[in-house]
């Protein structure tokens, strides 16, 4: 049912009880005829309306584990679990283990190569590395590790969502490859181009 309200002779307000949209038509004495009703818009397909969003990206930093390897120093590493549907990432679900120094490496690579201002890492905690300084377990103390884990999660999410950092090889290596090859050639990761080149190659052959 449509209702039409008249306010003064130059303003008409139309409402429909079935539709939430209100169309306002203003006709003024100047006979401008400049309607201020909305511009015509394309209707959104139901598919677009209800399909999964194209911006799905979730990275969690979990499961800190302290490892004691024979003959080497004790260290803590974390699981980096990533789920995404962004085409820029080769692997849609990945899980790798990384330690703090790996994050530092990533940060340095990005600072040097990418155009972004790289967010900060949680602190290095030099004090804690001195044994018995605080009376607790230093860098292996639970609360400290938890704080660090949170900071690392914030850090990695900020970077991975950044359009300018998403193409960096170092980021892809960090997130999706088993081990980090510190001797890699820095650069941009053109996975898309690789796939296209591959397709073209097969077509031409």
């Amino acid at each position: 049912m449509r209702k039409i309200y008249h306010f003064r002779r130059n303003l008409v307000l139309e409402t429909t009880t079935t539709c939430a949209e209100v169309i306002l038509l203003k006709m003024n004495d100047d006979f401008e005829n400049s309607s201020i009703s909305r511009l015509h818009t394309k209707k959104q397909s139901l598919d677009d309306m209800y399909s999964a969003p194209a911006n799905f990206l979730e990275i969690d930093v979990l499961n800190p584990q302290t490892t004691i390897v024979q003959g080497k120093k004790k260290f803590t590493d974390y699981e980096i679990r990533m789920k995404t549907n962004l085409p820029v990432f080769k692997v849609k679900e990945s899980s790798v283990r990384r330690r703090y120094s790996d994050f530092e490496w990533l940060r340095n690579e990005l600072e040097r190569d990418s155009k972004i201002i790289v967010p900060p890492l949680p602190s290095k905690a030099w004090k804690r590395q001195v044994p018995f300084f605080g009376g607790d377990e230093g860098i292996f103390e639970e609360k400290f590790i938890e704080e660090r884990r949170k900071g690392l999660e914030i850090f990695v999410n900020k970077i991975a969502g950044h359009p300018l950092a998403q193409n960096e090889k170092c980021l892809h290596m960090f997130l999706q490859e088993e081990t980090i090859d510190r001797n890699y050639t820095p650069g941009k990761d053109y996975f898309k181009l690789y796939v296209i080149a591959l397709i073209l190659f097969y077509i031409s052959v």
Partner: protein
Amino acid sequence: MNFLGFGQTADIDVVFADSENRKYADCRMDENGKKEKLLLYYDGETISGKVNVTLKKPGTKLEHQGIKIELIGQIELFYDRGNHHEFLTQLKELARHGDLIKNTSYPFEFPNVEKPYEVYTGSNVRLRYFLRVTIVRRISDIVREIDIAVHTLSSYPEMNSPIKMEVGIEDCLHIEFEYNKSKYHLKDVIVGKIYFLLVRIKIKHMEIAIIKRETTGAGSNVFTENETIAKYEIMDGAPVKGESIPIRVFLAGYDLTPTMRDINKKFSVRYFLNLVLMDTEDRRYFKQQEITLWRKSEKTRKSLSNSAIGGTASTQGSTNNLTQAQQNATMPTHLVQGASSIHTSSDIQGSHTSPASSSNVVSASAAVDHPNMGLFTEEDSPQHEAQSKTRSNPLAFDTDEDKTPSKEEDDAPLSASKEQPQQQKSIDESSSLFDEPSATITEQQQSQSNNTAISNNDGEIETSAATADREASTAKD
């Protein structure tokens, strides 16, 4: 004789003819925005009235070397105080040297004065018209200045096409925005829409702002000041592909002036619509688009008196009585000229690009110049210069990253009709910019655009990250 104020002195007052029939305009009088009502005149109108000289001490005579009245239009640049540029001076002698023994009234008339520019008070420049009455005396003159307001009127532009553009960052965000016109009068309504074609970032909200950019000076000392006149949110939440967001901005509520281009080669005042999208990590993606504002004559129900014919622009055919000067007034060229190029060119708070990359992008896309979109973060670090320049990269978002001040050139070849002013640091907090760093990004863009370019959808990405992080990073050990 006048020793230490013991002599005779006088008060000067100016009464304007037909001031009852004339409108007043609210004008900003100083940089702080204090407003005052001034009598409003239009181009070609006669300024006439009476100067009343009142002696302060009755009974004593006032000796003087002459009384004169001047009509002055001047441009004052604040950084160059004391140096006023007068573009209009007219002088009338009211009295020759002699003695005043009683209060006297002198009539004056400046017939059909050309007043080519509108009055304007801004952050760095002031244009004003005033009458200056001087009683010349041997030791000290008695001077009184009275300001008047001048508005320049335009009629409906013949060509007023909508602004419609597709911009984006390759693989991350593509939008198509549309505004119903490119030239708006000061009481107009901006009706538009944003259509999302690709959304691979997590958008938090979108807002639109009206920005006034005042450029003063010439050559190497150009100074630009941006002011956000209005800003409001038009979308909250994350859009998906296929969604359209409507825009409706009523200009009447804001303190706006008409667009002024290169007034007497001294300053410009231009207006931009700034569309800003913010993602969940506080990164901002923006697109600036210039709009032309013009002043429409207000049709009054009263019949216009003879002295007021000069003012009204010919909206619907009142051109018959207009004199030459008045007809010139109907379409001040400096206001609407060049505006036809607006919808194809824009000034943008963009970022720099190396000539190589821009030429590549040119080859990859149709030769249409579209401005870039910017991506930058909320807070501006004071260390970073925000030097930005316009760039004619079709359909791109810029993000400015303030690593090093970039000195790259605009890709001038692309945009023949485009205005590309050099911009300096944006003071406005809502449009913080950083310099665009150089090679690696543009390389990336080159290869990307070469291989993945769709005919009208090239992307360039230049970004900056969250400033909060940057600030924190300086404190990081």
